[in-house]
C-alpha cells in the first residue's frame, strides 16, 4: 500500500478501530484524540506498525463483508428483543412543555442539608440546577436569626454580583455587603458576598491579628461551586479557606456532582471540630433526555431508551442515531479527502 492508499483506508475505518490503533501506537494519550489527530498520529507511526494497521483494515473489511452477506434480522426476531423496540421521536418529545404550577415545597435533601447545619458542617453535592441556592438562603436566614455573620463565596466576580443582587432582594440591601478585589460596598453588613480569594485574604488578616470586617461573629461560611477545589490554578485557595475557616463558624460547601464527595466529607470531619454531614444524590429534578439531531434536520433519540442509561457501559446508541452518525463521519471524512 502507498501512503495515500493507507491514509484512505484509515479514513474509512470506524472511529473505534482508529482509536484502538492509536492506542496501540501512541499509548493512552490517543484515547483523548479526535479523529484528525488520531489519523495524524497513526500515519506518523505507520512505518513501524504497518502490520497492525493492515490487520485493522482487514478486520474492518471482513466486518463490512459479513454485514453485507447477512440480511438484517426481521422486526421482532432480533436478539435485542429483551431491550424492546427502540424508542422513536414521538417518545423522545413526549410530555415536553411547562408543568402544572405547584407551590414551592423544599426537597427532602434541601431540608436535610439545612438541618444538618445545626449540628456541624455540611457538604452538598447534587447535580447542577437542583436548587443549592435554597439551602444557602435558608442557612443564611437561620444564622441571621442568631445574630451571626454569614460569608458567601463564589469563584467568579460575575457570580458574586448575581448573588449580591439576589441576596439584596431576599434580605434587603442594608443587610448585604459585597467585597471584591478593589472595592467594598457595605462591608460591615451581616451578610457578605465575596470571591473565595477575598475570604482567604480576610482569614490571613484575621490570623495575623488584624481583625477585619465581622469575622469574630462569623457563624456561617458558604462556599459555592466548591468543586473548584480541584482547579489546577485556583484550587489551593479553596483549600486554604477551608483550613483557616474559624472553628466557631459552620461550613456549607455547595458543589456540583463530583466523584468523591465522601472523601471531602471525611477530610472535613478529620480537621473540623464537628463531623461533616454529606448530602448527595445524582437525581435530576427535571428529567433529562438525550437526542441526536442530524445536519439534515432529522431528530432521533440518542439512546435506545428515552430515559438516560445509568452508566456508560449500559449506554446503547439508538440504531437510527448510530446509522446517521456513521454516515456523517463517512461523509465528512470523504469531503476532507477530496476537498
Amino acid at each position, binding site marked *: 500500500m502507498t501512503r495515500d492508499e493507507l491514509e484512505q483506508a484509515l479514513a474509512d475505518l470506524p472511529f473505534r478501530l482508529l482509536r484502538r490503533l492509536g492506542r496501540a501506537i501512541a499509548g493512552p494519550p490517543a484515547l483523548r484524540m479526535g479523529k484528525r489527530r488520531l489519523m495524524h498520529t497513526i500515519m506518523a507511526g505507520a512505518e513501524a506498525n504497518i502490520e497492525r494497521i493492515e490487520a485493522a483494515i482487514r478486520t474492518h473489511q471482513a466486518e463490512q463483508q459479513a454485514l453485507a452477506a447477512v440480511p438484517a434480522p426481521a422486526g421482532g426476531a432480533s436478539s435485542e428483543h429483551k431491550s424492546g423496540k427502540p424508542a422513536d421521536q414521538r417518545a423522545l418529545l413526549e410530555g415536553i412543555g411547562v408543568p402544572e404550577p405547584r407551590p414551592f415545597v423544599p426537597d427532602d435533601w434541601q431540608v436535610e442539608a439545612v438541618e444538618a447545619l445545626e449540628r456541624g458542617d455540611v457538604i452538598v453535592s447534587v447535580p447542577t440546577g437542583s436548587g443549592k441556592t435554597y439551602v444557602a438562603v435558608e442557612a443564611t436566614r437561620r444564622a441571621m436569626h442568631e445574630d451571626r455573620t454569614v460569608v458567601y463565596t463564589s469563584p467568579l466576580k460575575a457570580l458574586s454580583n448575581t448573588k449580591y443582587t439576589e441576596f439584596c432582594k431576599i434580605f434587603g440591601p442594608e443587610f448585604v455587603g459585597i467585597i471584591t478585589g478593589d472595592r467594598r460596598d457595605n462591608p460591615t453588613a451581616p451578610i457578605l458576598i465575596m470571591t473565595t480569594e477575598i475570604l482567604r485574604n480576610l482569614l490571613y488578616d484575621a490570623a495575623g491579628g488584624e481583625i477585619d470586617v465581622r469575622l469574630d461573629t462569623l457563624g456561617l461560611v458558604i462556599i459555592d461551586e466548591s468543586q473548584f477545589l480541584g482547579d489546577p490554578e485556583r484550587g489551593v485557595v479553596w483549600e486554604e479557606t477551608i483550613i483557616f475557616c474559624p472553628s466557631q463558624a459552620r461550613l456549607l460547601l455547595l458543589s456540583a456532582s463530583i466523584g468523591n464527595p465522601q472523601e471531602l466529607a471525611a477530610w472535613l470531619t478529620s480537621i473540623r471540630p464537628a463531623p461533616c454531614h454529606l448530602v448527595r444524590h445524582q437525581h435530576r429534578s427535571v*428529567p433529562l433526555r438525550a437526542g441526536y439531531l442530524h445536519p439534515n434536520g432529522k431528530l432521533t433519540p440518542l439512546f435506545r431508551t428515552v430515559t438516560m442509561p445509568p452508566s456508560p457501559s449500559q449506554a446503547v446508541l439508538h440504531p437510527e442515531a448510530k446509522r446517521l452518525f456513521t454516515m456523517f463521519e463517512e461523509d465528512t471524512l470523504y469531503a476532507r479527502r477530496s476537498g
Partner: protein
Amino acid sequence: MPPSIHPVHLVTVLRQKSLTPAIVFLTSRRSCDEALQAFEHATDPLSPARQESITAVLDELTATYPSLQDHPLRKMVTACGVAAHHAGHLPSWKIAIEELMRRGCLDAVFATTTLAAGVDFPARTVVLTQSGVRRDQDFTDLTIAEVAQISGRAGRRGKDSVGFAIVTPSPYMDLGVLIRGLTGRPEPVDSQFIIAYPMVLNLLKAHPLDHIQSILAKSFAQYQMNAQAAHLEHRIEKLHAKLESYQPRECSDWLTQWSAYGHATRQTAMKLQARRHHPPEVRARLPYLTPGRVVAFPRFRGIVLRRYRSRGQRHEMMTVLRKGGVVAESPVADIMGVIDRTFDFAPASAFPWATPEALSWLTQQLEDLPKHLSFLTVPPAPDEEEGEVVKSLGDLFPCPTCPCRPTCAKEFKAANTVKQEWLHHTRTVQSLRTGLWHKFQERAEILQDLGYLNPAFKLTADGEWARLIRIDFSLLITELIRAQAFKDVAPPTLAGLMACIAYENDRPGSFPRITAALASLVAATRRMADALAPYDDPPLLRADVGGLAERWVSETTVTWAQLCRSTSMAEGDIYRLLSRTLEYLSQVHSLQATHPDLATVAAEALSRIRRGVLEELP
C-alpha cells in the same frame, strides 16, 4: 463549519419541535459570533410582541448598566431572539443575556463551554456540537464533569417537565466522549495544593515555624497523600513479610552482598552493552580505528586522531582530521568504511591530539591519497558472552566458601526484586508524609535568603508588608518595590505595568503604543523576573497590553468605545484586563503604611480606571 448543521436551520428545527429556549454550546467565541451573524439574513423576525418584551427587559437593565444602551448587538437580539454569550462580551451584556434567558425571551443562545460553572443560565434544551474544548493551545476532550455542567442546564425547575441534551455532529466529534459525559460518574476532585510565597509569609506571621507542619497536615493534599501512604504501607508490610520468609542463612546481609556483586556485574555489562549498542558491523570496525587510520565518510575522507567515548554517552566517537586541516568530532557509526592505509604520527595529549608538525604532515598525506582506495574487509564482531563478565569479576564474587551459596544464588533475584520494591515504596511513603513540609521549608529558606524572614523564621520589616501582596507573581512585585523600581512612577505607567504582569493570555493583537517610560519599566521588570526565575515562574509579561491600561489611565477623556477602537482585543478581554489591573493596584494600595508615595500613585490609578463601563459593577 460546512458539514455541521447551519445555525439558522438548527434554531428553526428547535423551534418546530418546541425545544426552545436552547443553549447551543460551541468551541470558540468566533464560532458563536459567526453563528449569530448567520441570522442577519434570516427572513422571519420575531413577532412584535416578543420584540417588545425583549426591548422592555433591555431598557429596564439599561438603568443599571448604561453600556447596554448602544450595544451593537441589541438590534440583532431583539429582532431574532437569538444571542451569543462568551468571554469576549462585557459582563453587563452577559448579565443582560442571562436575564433575557431567565425570563424566557430568547429562543437560542450560542455559548462557549466556559459558561460552565455557577451562572444561573438554564434552558429547556442544550445542544452539544463538539466533544472537545480548547485548553492552552491544545484541544482536549470534555470531562464528564463538564458535560454534566452543560447538560445540567437543560430543564428548568418549574418551567420544564423534561430537559433535553441534543447532540448534533460536527467533524472530529467523538461521540464516545459525549456518551460517557452524559451517562458517567463525574471525576473525583483532587487536591491542587501548592505552597506559594504569600502563604509562607502569612502563615509565619501568625504561627511559629514549628506549628506549621501541623497546619499543613490539615490540607486536603495531605489527607489524600496520607491515604495513599497508608495504602502503600499496607503493601510495604506485605513485602516485609515476604522478605522475612527468605530465611537468614550463614550471614544476615546476604542480599547486600549479592547486590554489590550484581551491581559490579551490571557495571561491567554496561560497558559491554555500550559497545553492543552499536550494530555489529560498526562494532567490528572498532579495533581498526586506531590513531592514524584513514577512514571514509559518505562525502569525504579523514584520518583518525583519537577514539573516545564521552561520559554518559553510549556512542563511540572519533576525532578526525579532514581535508584542509579541519579537526572535527564524529560518531564512529558515521563512517562508511575503513580504508587500508595508516600513518604513524606523533600524538599529543590534548586537542588536536597531534603535534602541529604531525598535523600539517597528515593534512598533506590526506591530500595526496589516490582517488580510489579499497575498503578493508572487516570480519564480523564476535558476541561477548556473559561468562566473560563473571570471569573478570572473580575476586568480587561473594562468599566463595559459604555452604548457603547455591540457595542464595537461586533466590537472590526474587528476593532482591521484593527488596527493591520495598525500598521504593518506603521512599515514596516518606515523601508523601513529609513532602509538603519540605516544600514549605524550601520556600521559607528562599524568603530568608531574600530578607523577608529573619534567621528565626519571623517576618522582617520587609516581610511584614510583603505578606499583604497576595496575588500571582507577588515575589516579583515585592522585589520590584524593594529595588525602588517604582520611584517617581506615574499612575498610568504603574497601571500599565500591572496590566502587563496580570495578563496571562498570549492571544496576539494590536494595541495602543506604550510610552518609553512603561517600556523601560517593563524591561526592568523582565530583568527582575529573569533574576527570580529560579524561585518563581516568571509572568508572560506582554508589554503590548500595557498600552491599553496606560491609555485608559492617562487620558481620562477617552471613552470606552474609543478605547475599544484602539485595539483588536475583544471588549470583554479589555474589561477583564482592566479589572485584573484594578485588583493588582489595590494590593499595591494596601501598602499605605509602609509605602505612602507608591500607595498614593496606586490610588490615583485606581480611581482613574474606575469610570464608564468599569463603574457598572462592584
